[in-house]
């Protein structure tokens, strides 16, 4: 079920929330679990089949690991868990590729696997209630959006959580902000991309290909961050506190820093469960580089499609490795604007590779971007294209920067007067206005 579709927003979600809050507190995890299964089964019942089996297995592995006293037996359980979780991901990435996008097949597996690993490392006590475990691993908005809350943080919330109007209001406004980001901003970007994709080779100027690449970057950013906001908002309405997944990545001045601000929970997961298992803080530089490359290979496969996913993962991995070797040291002497610019060119190139259907298509756009061949640099249709979407381009840039949020924070801090009044009015009306605006562009 797409989270920005009519069926979700006007059928599933209202009904789900109604049942959730009418149900006694003790049954809410059950409602959540069932809701998640219906959410995923709606489009592909097969998917839920695989999901249920792997959730059940991981629940059992978790219990076995915590009950067993033998290190060897725990290791076998962990190994089996890794195998059952990664096999479908590899199969659906390379053997029978499916269009998985951001809400990848691997999402609930990562949630589930991180739990088993945490059990193995004795960081958490294994979950005794399969319903609680099921509610955590299949938590639909979170799984759909690619946000991975730590099991450790979630365990207590699964048992007991707070409900309140302030929570709900914050959740609602976060949810609507996410919806607007996805529908209005990512929607505009994908329209621009579609228009440029239609251009035959002879009409694709260098400027077109840059607009294509930059729009691709913002499309991914606002799709992922829009869904993440919807997930975090919805989780908050339901009483959960889920970590942020984005922290204004456009301000990043190195690739390393970018990935500290982009898909934060996912990168953190890979760092914890892949990178840190290969090398430690004190390990030598060579091992660290190998670990980085392995981690980013996995990231690429998880995030992108087939060979393109792999290539983009390696691209980011190599840059991060180079940064740790010397680039960051050189960067100290470079003005921040230049650093930000260079970082984004690298990111944009990577995102073009990641999202295009094959390497040859990626190369087609990249060559054009970097003046390879004798395509013209610019024609007037570029101005028309930018003019047509200008207002949404402005909003996209504004939404990528923290200025509006800073302004709202300042207003909130103002104890009296017009600042406070402005804050209160905006706070009350903005979600409703954004909601209506999103519907206008969603129909």
């Amino acid at each position, binding site marked *: 079920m797409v989270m920005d*579709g009519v069926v979700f927003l*006007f059928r599933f979600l209202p009904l789900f929330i109604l049942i959730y809050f009418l149900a006694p507190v003790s049954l809410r995890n059950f409602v959540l679990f069932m809701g998640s299964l219906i959410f995923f089964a709606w489009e*592909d019942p097969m998917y839920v089949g695989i999901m249920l089996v792997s959730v059940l297995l991981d629940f059992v592995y978790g219990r076995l690991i915590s009950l067993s006293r033998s290190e060897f037996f725990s290791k076998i359980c962990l190994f089996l868990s890794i195998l059952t979780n990664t096999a479908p991901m590899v199969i659906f990435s390379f053997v029978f590729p499916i269009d998985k996008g951001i809400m990848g097949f691997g999402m609930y597996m990562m949630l589930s696997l991180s739990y088993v690993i945490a059990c193995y490392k004795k960081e958490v006590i294994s979950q005794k209630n399969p319903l609680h475990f099921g509610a955590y691993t299949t938590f639909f908005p979170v799984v759909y959006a690619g946000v991975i809350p730590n099991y450790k943080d979630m365990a207590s919330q699964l048992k007991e959580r707070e409900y309140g109007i302030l929570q709900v209001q914050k959740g609602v406004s976060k949810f609507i902000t996410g919806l607007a980001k996805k529908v209005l901003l990512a929607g505009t970007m994908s329209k621009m991309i579609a228009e440029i994709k239609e251009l035959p080779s002879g*009409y694709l100027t260098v400027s077109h290909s840059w607009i294509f690449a930059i729009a691709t970057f913002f499309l991914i950013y606002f799709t992922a961050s829009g869904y993440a906001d919807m997930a975090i908002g919805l989780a908050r309405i339901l009483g959960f506190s889920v970590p942020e997944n984005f922290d204004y990545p456009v301000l990043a001045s190195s690739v390393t820093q970018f990935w500290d601000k982009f898909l934060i929970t996912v990168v953190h997961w890979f760092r914890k469960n892949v990178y840190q298992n290969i090398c430690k803080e004190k390990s030598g530089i060579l091992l660290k580089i190998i670990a980085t490359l392995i981690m980013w290979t996995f990231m690429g496969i998880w995030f992108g499609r087939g060979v393109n996913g792999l290539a983009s993962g390696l691209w980011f991995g190599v840059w991060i490795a180079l940064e740790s070797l010397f680039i960051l040291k050189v960067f100290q002497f470079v003005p921040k604007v230049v650093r930000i610019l260079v970082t984004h060119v690298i990111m944009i190139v990577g995102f073009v590779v990641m999202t295009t259907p094959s390497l040859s298509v990626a190369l087609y756009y990249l060559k054009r971007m970097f003046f390879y061949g004798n395509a013209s640099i610019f024609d007037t249709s570029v101005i028309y294209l930018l003019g047509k979407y200008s207002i949404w381009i402005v909003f996209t840039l504004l939404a990528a920067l923290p200025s509006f949020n800073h302004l709202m924070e300042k207003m909130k801090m103002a104890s009296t007067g017009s600042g406070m009044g402005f804050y209160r009015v905006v*706070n009350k009306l903005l979600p*409703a206005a954004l*909601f209506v605006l999103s519907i*206008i562009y969603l129909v």
Partner: protein
Amino acid sequence: MKWEDEKRDAWHAVIFLCLIWMIILLADLVKPDMDKSLLENKILAKRPVFSMEKLVSGEYATEYEAYAQDQFVSRDKWLKLRLDIDLFFRVHEVRDIYMGDNSYMFAILKPEKYEPLEEKGLYRISELVQKYPNIKLGLIPTKECILAEKLPFLAPNYKQKAFLEKAGVSVGEKNWLDLYSALESHDKEKVYYKGDSHLSMLGCIYIYETWMGSEKRLQRFYQPEDMETVLFGFRGNLAIPQIEDVTDQIMMVTKITEKPVAVLYDNGLVASSLMDKRKLYSEYPYDYYLGGEYGLIQVNTGYSAQGRELIVLKDSYANPIIPLLVPYYKKIYIIDETKYHEDQDAFIENHMTDKTDILVLESITGFLEN
């Protein structure tokens, strides 16, 4: 901010949003399904039939999502709001239509669609000239060319003039009709409809005069006052009444309908006039001229015209011009190349005499698309 105030604000915000949500939701649940979106000119998805198999395969979900999206409450009103917002931000593009100055609507003719067809077009022109040395070629520039200054600023638009110049040079003066100059010199007059892609009757008269003038046979002159309106409120193929109700008038030259003609359509129908008045009240009133689109129409005009005959290869742009040619010919054969599925060359050879003129009268875009 006081805690109580914050809490009260939170209640207000949540209740306000939920109210809007619920109203839309309830309205969406109770409203009846629609067949068609007028604004989008699109048939809307129907409620899918439920079956267990379809549910399991995921097909039901896909169909239901399309249905819910298409049948969303007040769909056209939301779309209209979107277009209004676009217009407010000076985006003059709706569906595949540019909204130009003075309520002129234009088709979006992308250079990348037509430029690659030019070479083939030029080849076809030279082929025609070789085959029929006395052929006249009249390629009609569309309004996007003649009225280009009314298009939105910098809107991509296929440059027809450049192609016409190339074609004119390759054909040579003897076989070429310069319709660009004919229309461009009258671009301040209403030579095109506002809400339809075709030429108005006035535009057609200028084309008729250009051709007959070039043949030095122009005997009948028509003035604007010789025309009468046969239909007010014509909503053409580019009009989107939900956005802006652009209407035109369908006109006809009164003088030419002096005597009945014998018209034979390729579907076996016969008629005594080249104009079909019933079509004025059909979905597309422009079909009034020649009764719409047919592959082949044969006309016995009833004039002797020294036994002269005419074969016209045309598209819909030429439809209103044909009636003006009636007094000049004994017989007229009208072939629409897109609709005529027999051997066109064989037909021309069979009907060619030393008194037969052969004329191509098509829009540039139509010609290139063929």
